[in-house]
């Protein structure tokens, strides 16, 4: 499998402003994201996960090291458009990324910028709206939709570029549980059915469970990297970084502290229940 995103010795420091000293956000990050994979990036507030995401399509440029997107260096200004249409980005607040006051016009914004012929834009817009399940709302005004619907419109707006990778920076942080469910289902479907590479930045552990790979960032570095099972089993490391673990793992961990010996890699409620049932059987 080829890598779609590769960083080499990536460092980043925000430019100093006034008398405030600027510390590096992260240093020497080496990272590879495989094409077609679903990676979740978690970490406490201020650990640099959003800043890292912004490196992936040249919104921010590295202060040291290099970021390659399909072999394209993000610091090469001539490649910027090509990089941005390869890696699409969705942000936290859906209100602040919708440009037009009609849904379909907004989804058409990116392909219009790319200079795509009208007939093909129409086709892409319809396709993108159907993918996120918002086709019936194409003539609505975005401000009358719910948060989850707006965020799906924002995703459609990125999909209309036909990117190979989509980076989502806490897309569910401002949504209610229903909206969160809709958005996460849409993202998983994109990854499973269309083979879209997904990088999901989140601080909801339950959202990271569905990923192929979980990256835990802490203090400007990558603390843990592995499958959700491997990562969430490290309860103590995660706790020391100020992070929660999924409830099922938490339960198993606490039971183990009381003398049980449960595996820590049960990520769904069913798995957890089975593991506890098995442990009970052995005991009897």
């Amino acid at each position, binding site marked *: 499998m080829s890598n779609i995103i590769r960083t080499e010795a990536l460092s980043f420091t925000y430019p100093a402003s006034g008398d405030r000293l600027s510390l590096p956000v992260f240093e020497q990050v080496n990272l590879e994201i495989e094409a077609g994979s679903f990676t979740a990036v978690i970490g406490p507030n201020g650990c640099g996960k959003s800043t890292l995401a912004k490196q992936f399509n040249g919104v921010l440029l590295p202060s040291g090291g290099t970021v390659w997107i399909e072999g394209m260096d993000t610091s090469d200004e001539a490649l910027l458009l090509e990089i941005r249409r390869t890696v699409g980005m969705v942000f936290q607040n859906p209100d602040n990324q919708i440009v037009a006051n009609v849904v379909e016009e907004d989804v058409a914004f990116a392909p219009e910028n790319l200079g795509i012929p009208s007939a093909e834009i129409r086709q892409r*817009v319809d396709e993108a709206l159907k993918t996120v399940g918002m086709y019936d709302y194409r003539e609505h005004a975005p401000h009358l939709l719910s948060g989850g619907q707006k965020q799906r419109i924002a995703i459609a707006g990125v999909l209309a570029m036909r990117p190979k990778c989509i980076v989502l920076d806490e897309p569910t942080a401002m949504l209610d549980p229903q909206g969160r469910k809709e958005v996460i289902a849409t993202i998983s479907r994109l990854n499973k059915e269309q083979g879209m590479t997904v990088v999901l930045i989140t601080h909801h552990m339950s959202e990271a469970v569905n990923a192929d790979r979980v990256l835990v960032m802490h203090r400007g570095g990558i603390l843990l990297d592995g499958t959700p099972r491997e990562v969430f089993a490290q309860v103590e490391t995660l706790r020391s970084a100020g992070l929660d673990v999924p409830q099922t793992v938490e339960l198993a961990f606490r039971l183990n502290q009381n003398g049980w010996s449960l595996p820590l890699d049960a990520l769904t409620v069913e798995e957890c229940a089975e593991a506890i049932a098995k442990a009970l059987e052995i005991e009897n």
Partner: protein
Amino acid sequence: MLKDITLGQFFPGKSLIHRLDPRAKLLILLAYFVALFLAKSYISYGLMVLFLAAATMIARIPFKSMTRGLKPMLIFIILTAVLNLLYTKGGRLLLSWKFIHIYTEGIKSAVFMALRIILLICGSFLLTYTTSPIALTDALERLLSPLKFIKVPVHELAMMMCIALRFIPTLIEETDKIMSAQKARGANFETGSLLKRAKALIPILVPLFVSAFRRADELATAMECRCYHGGEGRTRMKVLRFTWLDLGAFAVAGLLLAAVIVLRHFGL
């Protein structure tokens, strides 16, 4: 409360007027304004009223929505009419009382002035009622595009208008929220002298501006991520095309303008 504010309200529909190219509608409105300022007689004003009434009927816009839009302008219209009534001299003297002298010409010019303002407003309303804001900005961009050659940033202006329209409801909602938050902390917007009430607005405006700037910053990043790089090389999903319908509308509007000019030539 603030949500009821609507700017350039649009009534979606499928009438002939709705289906006209927005550029055609804008140009026709312009021609209509020119004709309004050229009209000098009861006959030409009659024609103007007839034209607008017919267009409103074809667009199936209820006359009530037209008159409702006029209400805020009523004082202005009455004031203009009264001033014209009092200060125009000519024709027969109808009434003379102390310093008030009313002539026949005065009545005529008062009626015409009031009609002119009413028709100007109703004409613009008909345009915004039947054309979506996005189509309107699009039409403006196209019509003004020759100005690019003298370095007028036409695309940027149209983009700004489009974004402003998009954010009006968002910012109104935000203002509502901030007002509630400040009220919850004991702010008082309803009583006190004018100066006091104006001062009470500061705690609303400051957070509103801060948040507007933050939104602008995020929107700019999101637009960049979606490959926005100015108007150059940009295509549109919906391409505006003139049809036979527009040609017909142009012909009718042209006839009206011609009729008004001819009538004016004969002193009517």
